[in-house]
């Protein structure tokens, strides 16, 4: 009996020590990260070397209007964060062996009738020249890039056993003639198309389930209000009985919409069905709540609350119960988004008026600062494979969209002109295989 109490006391002591260490840890790892120049890219990623060899072309020269197949594949490989590209003019086993390249891609381009190209694409094993993937696309040159994206996702599937994101898209906000409009482009910034054409601001685009369209905010009624538009369809207002609706988040399982609505200065979360137009309050809390985000399987919800004065990130169950605070470091932590792998969240934190992107574990521990000393960096959104984060930054002087690995390395700008903000990554596209 005595022994038992002693053991109990000991364990409480151990627990309090453990708690103390846990409490200290965030600041320790923060300080450590702070000294690392993020742009240099110290990567915890395991990358795979891959050889990329230019495709053979017919004798009668092709007039290339944009990049050639191997150039598009090189950009896909670099953006994917999964590969280390070893470029070679032709198959070179000595080079490939020295660089530990086990696989390489190449192919053949021929002219077809009707101004089309036939592109044969291959993934080979370097040592044996066995073909692992062979795919043929017959496309007009303007569609070459998308064909290469498809092939590259097949390469990822074969070599990683996972789905790649080369055929996914981004929705974001672009200023046109001084007015914010919603646009969509391929994940690499190409094939941009304008979704809203309004005289009032459109913003905060998110993807509907199965990438059928977008939900976004527009100000045409002089108040922020949610609308949705299926691709090729017309815009429709959402939940007109609720005042000032914004911060949309689509439930990845049911397609329901979680969002903020402000009534008489008080902001609450609501959940609604986009087809029936019915909505109800999600949680009854004294604080203001905004920026909801679903867990990958929609079992829990991240959101921001101002109950501590400034914005901090909290999590709760999908029924609005079991609320826990996630962020404790700093006074301004906002707009969390849950990684598709489920293990971490990305969010924007403001310190001294500068915004930067961080990730942390679900209990708020293991904080990693991903951006540093490069203007404002905000609005992180995960790629559906969980390897990458897209975000907006004004490091170049104007706001543009960037993609980086989830550890902050390999930052690549994908938009070049105007002002582009608020990216959200699409779900996977299912027309791949």
């Amino acid at each position, binding site marked *: 009996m005595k022994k038992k109490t002693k053991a109990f006391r000991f364990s409480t002591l151990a627990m309090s020590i453990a708690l103390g260490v846990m409490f200290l840890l965030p600041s320790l790892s923060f300080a450590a990260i702070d000294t690392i120049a993020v742009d240099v890219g110290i990567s915890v990623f395991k990358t795979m070397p891959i050889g990329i060899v230019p495709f053979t072309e017919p004798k009668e020269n092709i007039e290339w209007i944009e990049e050639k197949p191997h150039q598009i594949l090189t950009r896909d490989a670099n953006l994917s964060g999964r590969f280390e590209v070893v470029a070679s003019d032709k198959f070179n086993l000595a080079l490939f062996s020295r660089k530990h390249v086990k696989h390489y891609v190449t192919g053949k381009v021929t002219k077809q009738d009707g101004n089309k190209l036939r592109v044969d694409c291959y993934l080979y094993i370097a040592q044996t020249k066995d073909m692992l993937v062979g795919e043929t696309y017959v496309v007009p040159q303007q569609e070459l890039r998308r064909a290469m994206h498809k092939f590259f996702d097949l390469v990822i599937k074969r070599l990683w056993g996972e789905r790649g994101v080369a055929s996914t898209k981004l929705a974001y906000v672009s200023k046109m003639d001084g007015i914010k409009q919603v646009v969509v482009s391929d994940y690499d910034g190409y094939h941009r198309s304008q979704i809203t054409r309004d005289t009032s601001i459109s913003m905060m685009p998110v993807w509907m389930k199965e990438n059928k369209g977008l939900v976004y905010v527009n100000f045409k009624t002089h108040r*922020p209000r949610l609308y949705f538009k299926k691709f090729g369809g017309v815009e429709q207002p959402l939940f007109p009985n609720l005042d*000032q609706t*914004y911060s949309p988040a689509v439930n990845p399982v049911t397609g329901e919409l979680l969002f903020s609505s402000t009534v008489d*200065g*008080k902001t609450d979360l609501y959940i609604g069905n986009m087809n029936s137009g019915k909505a109800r309050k999600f949680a009854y809390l004294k604080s*203001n709540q905004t920026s909801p985000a679903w867990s990958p399987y929609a079992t829990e919800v991240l959101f921001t609350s101002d109950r501590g004065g400034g*914005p901090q990130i909290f999590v709760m169950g999908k029924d609005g119960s079991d609320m826990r605070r996630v962020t404790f470091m700093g006074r301004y932590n*906002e707009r969390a988004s849950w990684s598709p792998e489920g293990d971490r969240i990305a969010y924007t934190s403001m310190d001294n008026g500068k915004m930067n992107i961080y990730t942390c574990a679900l209990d708020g521990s293991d904080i990693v600062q991903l951006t540093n000393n490069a203007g404002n960096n905000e609005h992180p959104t995960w790629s559906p494979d969980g390897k990458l984060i897209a975000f907006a930054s004004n490091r170049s002087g104007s706001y543009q969209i960037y993609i980086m690995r989830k550890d902050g390395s390999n930052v690549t700008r994908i938009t070049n002109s105007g002002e582009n903000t*608020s990216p959200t990554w699409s779900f996977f596209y299912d027309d791949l295989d």
Partner: protein
Amino acid sequence: MNKLLKFALVASVVGFALTACATPEPPKTEPEAAPAPEATAVQPETAPIAEQPVLNADSLAAVKAKEEAERLEAERARLEALINQIMSEDVYFDFDRSELTEKAKELLAQVAELLIKETRFSITIEGHTDARGTEDYNFTLGAKRAMKVKEFLAAYGIDAKRMESVSYGKEAPKAAGESEEAYSQNRRANFRVNIRD
């Protein structure tokens, strides 16, 4: 009639300019106070003249109705300009705060007096934030600011039914740039004046 109205408007503008002078920081308010309202006061006189050729009883009534509508619209614009004028001279929210400063309360009291006199008008209070922070959180912050203004005016005796509040977050800045000066100008509440039915 028009002349009388014009006189009344000018009188009230002058009257207002005087009260504006009485506020602690006259040099800033004075130069801008006069021109804008006067321009609107002239409008109702010029418009009906163009309509004059047709002169039967029906069209006379129509002209009168139009005149009345234009007069009301001009007055609405005048009141809106006046109210925004009162509010434009001062920063009245601190960063990430929604409490009203003493200065803001003084100015809002002037707005309240105007609204007590002009009972046909209702207002929309727009809450704004500076460019720092996320779009989402700034909507809630702007909403809190607009609400604080609404609560103050309600406490002063303005019927809540005459007031609507809306947040523009950081989407409608008054001043461009990333200086504290620009930021402080953008942490504000604006007013839109509407004619009640």
